[in-house]
Structure formats: structure tokens, C-alpha cells
């Protein structure tokens, strides 16, 4: 099966004009499967961490959103322990005009602005609301142990 022009163009652009702090490289044997790394944004508890993610473009991409999951352990109210991400643009608000780069930017922004009111990991979100400084400290600790190698 040939790769759609859209995916080729997007991949080319990701290489030619990379987004600062984000790196996405397709696998040689499967050009729909990307290894992604995102740098934790500055002034966030994830600062200094490099988070690995996997990204897959399904058959009907871009009509359906890409599938993305964190591979690095992360303490975040909108990311569960399997690394699944609760983000509107990955679900109902997906638009075919969005791209891999815009989605990855949204994820980076989510790291900078956790939203405990729309949680995926309930325990984390609850802690985040009850004792934010402690939650942020835990997020920092996890970043140090899991995302700085």
C-alpha cells in the first residue's frame, strides 16, 4: 500500500522544519509509526525531562486522529499510567486540517498547563486539586527518575 501524499509531506516538513523541543522520526519499516520525544516545557514540573511517546497514523488518517501514547512514566492529571492522553483534539475536536506537529504542540502545551478538572488519572487529579505543591513535587520527582537518563 502506498503512503498518502499527505503523510509524506508532513514527514518531510517535520524533518525540514523541526519544532523546537519536539522530535518525531518514522520507523524505517513502517512509515506510519513514529518515535517521538517531547522536552518538558520550561517553568513546568516536567522541565529538563525528555519524554518518549509513540505515534501511529491509522488507515483513515487524517479523517481520524493519530493514536498517541506516552512511553515514559509521567505524573500528570490528564495522562494515565498506561500513557494514554486525555486531550480534546485527539478525540471529538479532531479536524483533518490538524497535523502531527500541531498535535504534538498541543501535548507539549498540556504538560505546561495540566487540567485537573478534566482528569484521566483520577488519583493524580485529586491530589493536584487538594495539594498542588505536593503534586507538583511528585511530578518533578518522577521527571527526574524516569525522564532524565
Amino acid at each position, binding site marked *: 500500500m502506498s503512503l*498518502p*501524499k*499527505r503523510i*509524506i*509531506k*508532513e514527514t518531510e516538513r517535520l524533518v525540514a522544519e523541526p519544532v523546537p523541543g519536539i522530535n518525531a522520526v518514522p520507523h524505517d519499516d513502517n512509515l506510519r509509526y513514529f518515535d517521538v520525544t517531547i522536552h518538558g516545557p520550561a517553568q513546568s514540573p516536567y522541565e529538563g525531562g525528555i519524554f518518549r511517546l509513540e505515534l501511529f497514523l491509522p488507515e*483513515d488518517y*487524517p*479523517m*481520524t486522529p493519530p493514536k498517541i501514547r506516552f512511553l515514559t512514566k509521567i505524573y500528570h492529571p490528564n495522562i494515565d499510567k498506561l500513557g494514554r492522553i486525555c486531550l480534546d*483534539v485527539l478525540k471529538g475536536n479532531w*479536524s*483533518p*486540517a*490538524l497535523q502531527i506537529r*500541531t498535535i504534538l504542540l498541543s501535548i507539549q502545551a498540556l504538560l505546561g498547563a495540566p487540567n485537573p478538572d478534566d482528569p484521566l488519572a483520577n488519583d493524580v487529579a485529586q491530589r493536584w486539586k487538594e495539594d498542588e505543591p505536593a503534586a507538583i513535587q511528585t511530578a518533578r520527582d518522577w521527571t527526574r527518575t524516569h525522564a532524565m537518563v
Partner: protein
Amino acid sequence: MSSDDEFMSDQMSDDAYGDDDDSLGEEFDEDDDQDFDDGKEDKPSRKAYEVDFKVFSDEQIRKSQQSQVEEVSSILGLPGEQCAILLRHFKWQKDRLIEKYMDGGEEVLEEAGLGQSYDTLPRLEKVRGFACDICCDDERGLDTYAMKCNHRYCVNCFRQYLESKIKDEGEATRIQCPSEGCSRIVDSKTVDLLVPAEVDNRYKELLNRTYVDDRPNLRWCPAPNCEYAVDCAVRPAQLHTIVPSVSCRCGHNFCFGCGFSEHQPCPCSLVKKWLKKCEDDSETANWISANTKECPKCISTIEKNGGCNHMTCRKCKHEFCWVCMGPWQEHGTSWYNCNRFEEKSGSEARDQQAKSRASLERYLHYYNRYANHDHSAKLDKDLYVKTEKKMTTLQSSSGMSWIEVQYLEAASKVLQQCRQTLKWTYAFAFYLERNNITYIFEDNQKDLEMAVEQLSELFEKPTDQLANAKKEMMDKTAYVNNRRIIVLEYTATGLAAENWKFTVDLK
């Protein structure tokens, strides 16, 4: 100007039912040409437990949508497509739409995802130097399409986008422009233009469905493959005072309030509670707590099936007293005669157990009867087939004509109906408080049940005796039917007047 419009909209809403009926009545010459409100007065014989309703076909629903769109279109002076989107946005509350639009048209259009200017003629265009943002195709002479928001994509991507929304997501009224963050709603002219007929049909079907879903007075018949919708004026807020059973043209009887199959006299909320109770294994837990105790040490569940109070747990070998649950050693010399029995903690535990047992028995009493009638109701089909056979044999053996054996079919129908009613009287009774009207209700229930069993017994007779029992059977059928009406009338009037006292909250 504004007074003129108000006048018009008032007139329109008054005539709404009449208008629909005129357009429908031509093809379906049932009693549709009556005005809805008059219908109530025309039927003084309506029983307390019956509700007024009308059945509409798919086609009729489409037409009534169309006529409402045209009506609004003529009032607001907007193209039909735009009015359709507005009406859907306002959940088909015509008057509210007209009122709001008169207050501030622009705002309403914006809110419904229409924006300001709106072209009625969508068309494809070829644009020089165009590259599609979705597929990245930039060939020359590519057909492209954009709605008024000017987010332009190639025709293939737009089509694919619409197809995936319609076919995969079942979306119809809220399909937005493919561009990120653009809230413009895709109108049906655009859909017509872009997608193949098969998808377009699906789209129309979905529009129809949301129309019925949006209207509180309409509900699809829940029977499989049935395409009729029922119009009934009962609102969800009234459901604690009325049980609106309706009967679809396909023959399925169901409750307009909850869509469940007919459950008179039991109100919807009780039906829901009852079914949940029956499904839950909370009752299993209830049984366990009534019949078993837990080993104080390893918490294994133990049922005592005989023997003395000196228990030795099979699992952990812990020895304890069944009566006070204390360790056996502490009983000292008063073995086999636990004097701690009278202690407060012991008596509390006993009370708890007795209560739990009583409530379990009460539940089982009602459940067994409910399940029994439910089971009988499930044998309906068998009974019906058997009845037909009996009718044929009876014809040949006794020389009666087809008309003359019709009483058997009538009897079987009444029997089925009564079983259905009886079944739900038990769920109803389970939640009733004990008081005088409950006693009267139970008497009525008993009468109906006895009569039903007698009629049922008559059915069991061999065919050669059936002919002689004709009169008896017809009398019984009439009597049973009467008893059913009495039960339903009594419960329905009580519900309407909110006389019944329930052990749970109905609302």
C-alpha cells in the same frame, strides 16, 4: 413590524397540528384529519389509564419537518437550508427561534454556525495555485469546495470527511467545517452536492432521527426494524402520575415514557428500580446475609446447616460460637448454652439478621409472582399457535364456522394482556406502603389473578370439551377483561391524584 410577526407566529403555533394533518391526511386517511385537541374531547370513553397518541411514518415525519422549515422560511425570509439548520439548533422550538431571531438575527445565525452571508447555491470551483491542507495535493485543475467560511479543501477530502462523519460517527446535525476551530455547520445542500446517494440517504435518515429525538412529543417505536414514530403529549415531568402505554401501527405496545415494553400499572421510575433490583446481585448478597455468617477469623462465609453452636471453621480451624460469634474457649464451662446471647451486641446482630431475612422474603414473594407471570407472558407465542390449532380442530370436529370459533383467539389475547398487567402489578405492589388503598389494590389484584387462572384453566381443556365451554369461556373472557380494566383504572386514577404512598421516591 414586530407586532405583525408576533401575530403570525401565534397563529402558526396554534395551527401547527392542523397544518401537519392536512398535508398528511391526504395519503393516510385515518382519523388524522381531526385536530389533536379535539381528539381528546371526541373520545369521552377514554379510560383513566389510556393516553392519546398518534403514529407517524417515516415519510410523514419528513414532510412535517419540511412544512415547518417552509413555514419558518416564509416568516424569516431566509433560505430553507438555513432555516433547517436554525430549527435543528433550536431543537425545533419554532416560536423560540422566531422570537430570538427577531431580537438579534446576526447573533442567532452566528450561534447556529451559519455566520453572516449565506449563499444558497453551493458549487465546486477550480482555484489556481491551490494546495489542499488535508491531502496536500496541488495538481492543477483540482476540484475544490468551500462553504461560506472560505475554508477550501479538495473535493475528495471534503467528501471523505463528510462520509466518515456520517457513516462512521453517525453525525448529521452538528457536522462542522473540517477546518480546525471553525464552527460553521455543514448544511444539507453541501452534503447533497458532495456525497454519493447512499451516504446522502443515511444523512437524511440521521436528520430524521435527530428530529424525533429532539422533539419531546415524539418517540421512535423501539420494535426491531419498525420505522414508525409515536406522537404523545405526555411529558417526562408527568411520568409519576401517568403510565403512557401506546400501541404502534406495527403491533408493538410500549411505554411512551421510557420506551420499555408496556408496563401498566407500574410507573416508569418503579419499573427501572425493579428491573435493576432483579438484575443486581444485591439480592444474592441479601440472601447471604440472611442465611450465613462469616468466620470471625478468616472471614470465610459459612452456612450452618445443622448441629450445635460450636463451630469449627473448615478453612482456618478457628473455633467459635455461632450465637455470639465469640471464641469458643471463652465460653468456659457454659458450653452448649451460650449465656452471652442476651448481651446487647448479640441481640442487635439478631435483629439485623431477622430484618434482613424478612426483607428478603418479602422481595421473593413479589419476585416469584412477577417472574411467574413474566414466564407465562413469554409463552404467549406458544399459546397463540396452540390456539390457532385448536380453532382449526374445533372447526372440523364440531362443525362450527371460522367466525364462531373466534372467541378462542379473543380469549387468548385477553389472557396475554392480563398476564402482562399482572406481572407489573407485583412490581408496583412491592414498592407500596401498607395502607387501606393498598389493601383495596391487592383485592383487585387477587380478583384479576384468580379470574386469569380460571380462564387459563379453561384453555387446558381437551378440544372436544371446548365447544361446550364456549359460553363459559366468553363470559370469563369478558369478566377477566373487566377485572383488568378495574385494576388499571384504580391505579391510574390513584396515580393521577397522587394518592399512592410508595416506599421509594417516585421522581
